[in-house]
């Protein structure tokens, strides 16, 4: 909130919000690596797309990095054992989701040896065929580590096919509280740049633009030093503003290009990946190692010792917090548990929920931080309109959704909403606008599913009716045919008889004549 921001505010160039980032002191503490926990809980659905299919049996011994569930479908990702041990169960566990519903997972008991399988690394990735890189990334189960967890290989191969020219690397980390990307950029800048170069090779893009928010000067310096010798990797400091890390906003700020609605960045020759993903891609190609761990920020007023921790995928949040120093007063004053960032992360019902590939943060908030309050009526102040980075009218959409006029809400842009939460963040009446939008999108999806089901049912009923009609028609035709045949036969018979009779009469007559 400086003078420049005030100036921009007067000019009207003021999309998004400027939340207090709360990244320090967690961001300034070195990365810690958490030891292997006793048990790991690996949900089969850790990514966007189809869930993985288990390929192990209960009781089976696996080594670290061994495939335990394979990708299923076009958009999916495999899952690998984060450590060596025994598969103890394939069962339902609490999902990292606010609903607290369960989802199937593989439970692995660690044997403590932490023994790797043979990893097929590659000394010179730039000699590899780009398609081969895509295959290896897919096999390593790499997904976008920024939070959405979209299978990375699908993006890489798609980008190569669409001939993208620019690779945008998202080092924005605009979510408050989170510093996992910041920390990795500071400590692993050279590896990130190497990963970016591998991705450039895989996609055929000519240059990479790394966008880093200017509230991370150390990360910018480290990355600039690491990229100093690379002509095609450009480090670009960008203003700190939420949601700068959102794909469309980041692309616009870095390249000046606007991604059209209902299309993807590919269509304007751009591919976006997260810095963490660049590291995972490097590990998959250089070392042949699958994605089995990630860096998670533990933060929030209730966290005793906030910081960034490298944890194995499948570790329970409870154990991560315990390793990070536990909660203040053993959890007294804890108001909300959140996985991900405060703006777009989700509330979780308890801490016995595993870290998955897309988990960027584990946040323990006190009552003052969440500031939960009964909403007041909307005073039409328009703060949400100014804050919306997509140019929507959140107050109008929520008014329509309140009246269940979902189609009208879609008509004024509901489908363009990215659920970034800026509107609810600035709302003086504390109206849970995002909740309205998520609810409406859910309702619309349910309506679509219903419609599909109804259409399918209708089609089946129609087909049945057609079949019945056809059968009846065929029956009738057959009956008519038989009748016709009978009649024809009868007629023929009659004709024959008549002919015979006539013949005999004629014969008689002839006889008579002749007589």
């Amino acid at each position, binding site marked *: 909130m400086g003078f420049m921001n005030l100036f921009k505010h007067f000019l009207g160039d003021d999309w998004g919000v400027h939340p207090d980032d709360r990244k320090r002191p967690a961001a300034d503490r070195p990365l810690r690596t958490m030891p292997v926990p006793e048990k790991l809980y690996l949900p089969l659905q850790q990514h966007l797309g189809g869930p993985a299919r288990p390929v192990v049996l209960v009781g089976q011994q696996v080594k670290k990095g061994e495939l335990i569930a394979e990708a299923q479908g076009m958009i999916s990702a495999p899952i690998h054992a984060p450590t060596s041990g025994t598969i103890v169960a394939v069962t339902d566990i609490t999902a990292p989701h606010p609903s607290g519903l369960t989802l199937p997972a593989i439970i692995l008991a660690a044997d403590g040896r932490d023994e790797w399988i043979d990893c097929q690394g590659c000394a010179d990735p730039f000699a590899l065929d780009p398609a081969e890189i895509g295959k290896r990334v897919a096999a390593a189960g790499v997904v976008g580590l920024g939070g959405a967890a979209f299978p990375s290989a699908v993006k890489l191969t798609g980008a190569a096919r669409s001939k993208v020219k620019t690779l945008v690397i998202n080092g924005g980390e605009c979510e408050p509280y989170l510093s996992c990307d910041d920390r990795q950029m500071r400590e692993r800048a050279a590896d990130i740049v190497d990963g970016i170069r591998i991705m450039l090779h895989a996609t055929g893009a000519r240059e990479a633009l790394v966008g880093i928010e200017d509230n991370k000067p150390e990360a910018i310096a480290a990355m600039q030093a690491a990229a100093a010798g690379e002509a095609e990797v450009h480090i670009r400091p960008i203003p700190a503003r939420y949601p700068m890390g959102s794909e469309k906003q980041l692309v616009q700020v870095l390249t000046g290009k606007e*991604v059209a609605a209902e299309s993807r960045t590919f*269509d304007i020759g751009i591919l976006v990946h997260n810095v963490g993903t660049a590291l995972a891609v490097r590990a998959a190609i250089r070392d042949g190692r699958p994605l089995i761990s990630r860096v998670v920020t533990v933060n929030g007023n209730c966290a005793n010792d906030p910081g960034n921790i490298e944890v194995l995928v499948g570790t329970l949040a409870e154990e991560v917090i315990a390793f990070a120093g536990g909660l203040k007063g053993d959890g007294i004053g804890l108001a909300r548990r959140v996985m991900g960032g405060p703006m777009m992360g989700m509330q979780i019902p308890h801490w016995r929920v595993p870290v998955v590939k897309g988990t960027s943060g584990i946040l323990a908030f006190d009552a003052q931080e969440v500031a939960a309050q009964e909403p007041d009526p909307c005073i*039409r*102040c328009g*703060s949400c309109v100014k804050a919306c980075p*997509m140019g929507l009218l959140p107050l109008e959409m929520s008014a329509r959704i309140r009246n269940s006029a979902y189609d009208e809400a879609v008509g004024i842009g509901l489908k363009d909403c990215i659920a970034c939460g800026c509107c*609810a963040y600035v709302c*003086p009446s504390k109206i849970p606008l995002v909740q309205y939008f998520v609810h409406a999108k859910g309702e619309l999806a349910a309506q679509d599913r219903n419609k599909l089901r109804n259409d399918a049912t209708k089609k089946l009923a129609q087909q049945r009716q057609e079949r019945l009609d056809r059968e009846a028609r065929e029956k009738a035709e057959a009956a008519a045919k038989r009748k016709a045949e009978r009649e024809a036969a009868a007629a023929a018979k009659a004709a024959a008889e008549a002919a015979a009779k006539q013949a005999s009469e004629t014969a008689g007559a002839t006889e008579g004549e002749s007589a």
Partner: protein
Amino acid sequence: MTPATLTAQTVASPHAHGGNSVSRTMFRVQLALLPATLYGFWLYGWPAFFLWALTILSCVAFEVLSLKLMGTPRVKATLFDGSAVLTGWLLAMTLPPWAPWWVAVVGGFIAIVIGKQVFGGLGQNVFNPAMVARVALLVSFPLPLTLWVAPLPMSTLPTPDFVSSLRIFLTSLPVPDAMTSATLLGHAKTELARGIDLATALHAGPDLSWIGMRAGSFGESAAVLILCGGLYLLITRVITWHAPLAVLAGVAIPAAIAHAVDPGRFLSAEAHLLSGALMLGAFFIATDYVTSPNTTTGQIIFGLGIGLLTWVIRSFGGYPEGVAFAVLLMNAMTPVIDRFCKPRILGRDRKGKPLDIPENA
């Protein structure tokens, strides 16, 4: 830990909040009104204070009554959002400083019950409640609503003390002629109606004043202090510059042109800007969230409309002052403006169609 804290209620993101609230916004607007209000007390003495206090009090009382009658469960929370106080305050600012007590009560009733609660309470009203009350009072009781006392520091008569002020306020005694004065706009209108040229009429008429040394409503005259309040609201981001500037421009531009063409018939832009409720209207009424458009383009159109209508009413209408009428007319236009002025959605054109994908991207 109790079970209540274990089973958390499901809440959608975001899990953080910027800290703004309805009551904070209302408080800031009240703070911005304070300098002009205190100055008004000094200008017009105790009767003005009584008027101000009773207007606010009656607005709050009618708010409580309405909420009770409607059976709203959140009476206290609604009351503490400060919106009723603000409505009363703004209404008091626009009333003649020595208006009798029943003006305050009737005004409070019209503003809160008819202007706001009938529509469904905070956020639902189409018209600005204070302006509804102002206009209803003016149309129904023209005499007490156009009786202007000259600022006391300008008067030769002694300032009324507390008790005699209370008597003035409660008994509606006729104000001595020596204390009353015409407003500039009123004077101009009467003289023009008598066929007297403005150049001659204003020669002996009331002066303009940036610091409120002129007859007028209790809180409308000190342009400098209102401007300061407005700047405070701009800096604290309660309001944006679009609507206020558009209102001022909407009056000043036609006024300047007309005055240049026929100075004998039309007042100057300066006279328009420093008269009546214009400054207050621009910064505090046209920026009312509920009754103004919610996009910046819409606010500019809305402001220009208010300004232009004000000038038209002042120059050609039957009443000398037109801000309140102009505001109400533009309030009615707000839904239409909102319908046509929408921000462009990222990735779409103005009509809502996705942008074309360039061929050679």
